[in-house]
């Protein structure tokens, strides 16, 4: 009877925790609403550890409040002289052993998950043709943007990671300048992008992002990397496997696409003269991962945000091109071109507007 009661209590505590925690946050960014297997396992670990810890807090609080209420001097009398106890071996043993037991219980899932999340052996697996069986994405973090290259597919994109649902996606993580950290809270835990070595880990994406507020999950830089650390966001679009294959095919189809200085379109011509040096408009660049100067714009028109965090509209894009420093202090785009209406080597309002139209037209999905 007592045992059943205790179990019921534990269960209800767990239930309350679940309700309380899952009520928190937006589903595209909260770790409390996990949308991937890794994140779910971490969330379960959170619930499990929080339950043990809540138990500890409750026990301590009950003892403490009871002692405090019962042994007040106002109750004991002003002259009451308590017995000067030295201690108790039995009690010391009890409160040493019980926490050790609790911690050992917690250790089991900790160790299992640690090794599980650290297992990236599948990155080396190949089929009979020598092709990698797993989808691998090379993530390169730069001041303050992200490049996502798919080395085995030969395509590259930036700022919006596109991945298929229902399979493990493996990541090679590297930083090009200073240390950053790659984090998609609602999908799973983070891993640092170091400057000197490639970190590897995997994530799983269980839900398609289409129904979300902006149609994407939010990704964050989690390591202080300079003034615009707070704005170094990226987005994640998760697609069903067939839709992902179609996306890959249309990205591959941008091969050879470029902007021409001689174009009749003012936007394209201006882009070719002033922007193409850093920003490719083809997803198939043939360059090694992480070597691009600026974000690849071949799928810019499909993005949900400008510069990773501004609402996607022309007005914001024009303002961004005119003065990126205002939006992301310390970024490396500032000063690479001149803005003004007086000299021929400056980008005029008209040209910037045309460039914005041109960039926004670059799409593989529409």
């Amino acid at each position, binding site marked *: 009877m007592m045992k059943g009661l205790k179990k019921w209590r534990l269960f209800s505590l767990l239930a309350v925790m679940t309700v309380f925690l899952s009520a928190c946050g937006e589903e595209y960014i909260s770790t409390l609403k996990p949308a991937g297997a890794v994140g779910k396992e971490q969330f379960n670990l959170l619930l499990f550890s929080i339950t043990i810890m809540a138990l500890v807090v409750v026990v301590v609080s009950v003892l403490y409040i009871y002692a405090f209420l019962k042994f007040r001097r106002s109750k004991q009398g002003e002259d009451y002289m308590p017995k000067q*106890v030295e*201690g108790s071996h039995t009690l010391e043993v009890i409160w040493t052993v019980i926490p050790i037991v609790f911690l050992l219980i917690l250790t089991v899932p900790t160790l299992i998950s640690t090794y599980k999340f650290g297992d990236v052996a599948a990155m080396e697996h190949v089929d009979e043709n020598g092709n990698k069986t797993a989808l691998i994405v090379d993530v390169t973090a730069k001041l303050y943007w992200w490049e996502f290259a798919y080395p085995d597919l030969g395509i590259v994109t930036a700022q919006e990671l596109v991945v298929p649902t229902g399979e493990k996606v493996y990541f090679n993580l590297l930083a090009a300048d200073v240390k950053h950290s790659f984090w998609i809270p609602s999908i799973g835990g983070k891993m640092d992008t170091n400057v000197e070595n490639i970190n590897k880990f995997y994530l799983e994406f269980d839900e398609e992002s289409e129904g979300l507020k902006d149609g994407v999950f939010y990704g964050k830089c989690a390591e202080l990397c300079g003034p615009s650390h707070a704005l170094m966001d990226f987005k994640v679009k998760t697609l069903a496997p067939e839709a992902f294959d179609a996306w890959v095919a249309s990205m591959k189809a941008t091969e050879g696409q470029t902007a021409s200085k001689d174009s009749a379109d003012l936007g394209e011509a201006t882009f070719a003269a002033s922007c193409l040096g850093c920003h490719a408009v083809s997803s198939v660049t043939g360059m090694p991962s992480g070597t691009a100067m600026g974000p690849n714009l071949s799928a810019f028109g499909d993005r949900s945000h400008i510069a990773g965090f501004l609402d996607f509209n022309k007005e914001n894009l024009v303002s961004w091109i005119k003065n990126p420093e205002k939006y992301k202090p310390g970024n490396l785009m500032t000063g690479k071109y001149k803005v003004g209406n007086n000299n021929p080597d400056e980008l005029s309002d008209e040209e910037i507007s045309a460039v914005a139209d041109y960039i926004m037209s670059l799409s593989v999905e529409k």
Partner: protein
Amino acid sequence: MSSVAISKKTGFGATLWDYLTTVDHKKLGNMYFFAGLLFFAIAGFEALLIRIQLMVPNNDFVSAGLFNELLTMHGTTMLFLAATPLLFGFMNAIVPLQIGARDVAFPFLNSLGFWLFFLGALFLHLSFFMGGAPDAGWTSYASLSLYSPGHGIDFYVLGLQISGAGTLISGINFIVTIITMRAPGMTFMRMPLFTWTTLISSALILFAFPPLTVGLFFMLVDRMFGANFFDHTMGGNTIIWEHLFWIFGHPEVYILVLPAFGLFSEIIPVFARKRLFGYSSMVFATILIGFLGFMVWAHHMFTTGLGPTANAIFAVATMAIAVPTGMKVFNWILTIWGGSIKVTVPMIYALGFIPSFVAGGVTGVMQATAPLDYQLHDSYFIVAHFHYVIVGGIVTAIFGATHFYWPIMFNRVLNEKLGYIVFWVFFIGFHLTFFLQHFLGLMGMPRRVFTYQADQGWDLYNFISSIGAIMMGIGVILLVVNMLLSIKGKPVNQRDYWGDGRSLEWALVTPVPFYNFKQTPLIRGYDPYWIEKHEGNKEGMTYAEPLGDIHMPHGSILPLIMSIGMFIAAFGALYHPDGVSWSVPVIILGIGITVACMILRSFKDDLGYHVHKEEIIALEEELYGKGGNK
């Protein structure tokens, strides 16, 4: 306010000179306390600016660059320049009294330690007026700090190097003092817990600061001379900085929290009128925490990519620390169990500390769970966790001890009513600020962000958090007001102000004379004053020697001049990378001043002086009236 309470009026200049040259542990304790308070106020103000900026989304109260400077200086100042000196203040003021010593083992070094700390801290803060403060976080991870333009990081490196040397010197001084200068009968297992925690935390300083010194030195030569310890394009490695920093950085947490535990272990028995429960296991737990504190640094680096085996080992080691810490908590609770609890201001801080610290401790265990930490790391969850430990554990200890020891340190009392108001305003503000930050972290908010976009589910919690921070600020201001009011208060002029004092410091009548004990006491057990008091000894202690001449050290201005030398040299080093012609001469001049002082000190022996028996009797009559300290 002076602890040497000769009531002769002295001029401002003479008093200033007295403080600049003093080697008296009580005055240095006060100086540490007020210097720490000053930096605590500065860093608290920075925290307020941070919270105002984050009060609403997309705020532009401070710029992104300034925000990074503020968060860096807030963390660096609070840990190195506020919490450390405030605790050193209590260690200096109280530990020699607790062990029945006339002073610390090396009074000259004590003064040198203070001045190095203070001038290093001053140097670091000059960065605000000289081109920008450091902006790479208090951790100053190498890739970002090498990339950081301007001199901010140089200020960080040089300032911490100088003040760190001061801290190391003080740590060594306490180790020697506690090992060699205990009164007869004060065996190790009779030492009060605050003395024990001071000893262990000084030992941690001894082993933890050298790795920091090495790391800072590498950074210094990287930035000054273009060495490549951390430049990976030249074969360096930034992960080495992370290891060096955290091999220091994690023990640093225990350097601060152990003395805080010690202070509560003094406060709780007094106001429970009961012997500390499980004294020997408390001592054992302290030592064990100190030892394990060096085994867990890589839990700050779970996401760095050390691999599953390293993560697993450090996860388990980290969880192990919860065991001795839990022992302490249960021992405190069992101390009040069956006691006679009197609620006073120091006690209410202790009572508030227990649940707050437990909350901070359990979130620590959650983060030790490495795979879960992949989510929690560098989010607002960790910000909430360490503020629960540092504010809930260390700051409450400092505030509680301020009320507790004010009568001994300044022979005055802090106002009790105002004390309660401060406690409640501060305590509620503290929980309001940091409790919700756990959830901000879980909802995906990274730490160290200067702003955030609206409608990510974070707006309300951030707003409430900022309101809490403002309450904490009000609390601290009122505490300072309370301190100022106490100047006008009546002198205490008695021993055992709280009525239930147990350890030796309460046997002394305040104001404590500069030589502390006119005769060295004989310690007959744990809680010596309690024993004497309950055996009806009106003098509060049994003496181990007859009244005789007391040997005391002379004051000296040399520690200040030596520290100024280092201060000057730091400016040369700071501007050396700019290629200015005067940098090397300035370095040589500064170090020359320091070395000259060292040579002078080495050749000119200070033999100290004797306070004669008659002078002691006369002084005690002047302090305490006819019959002296009876």
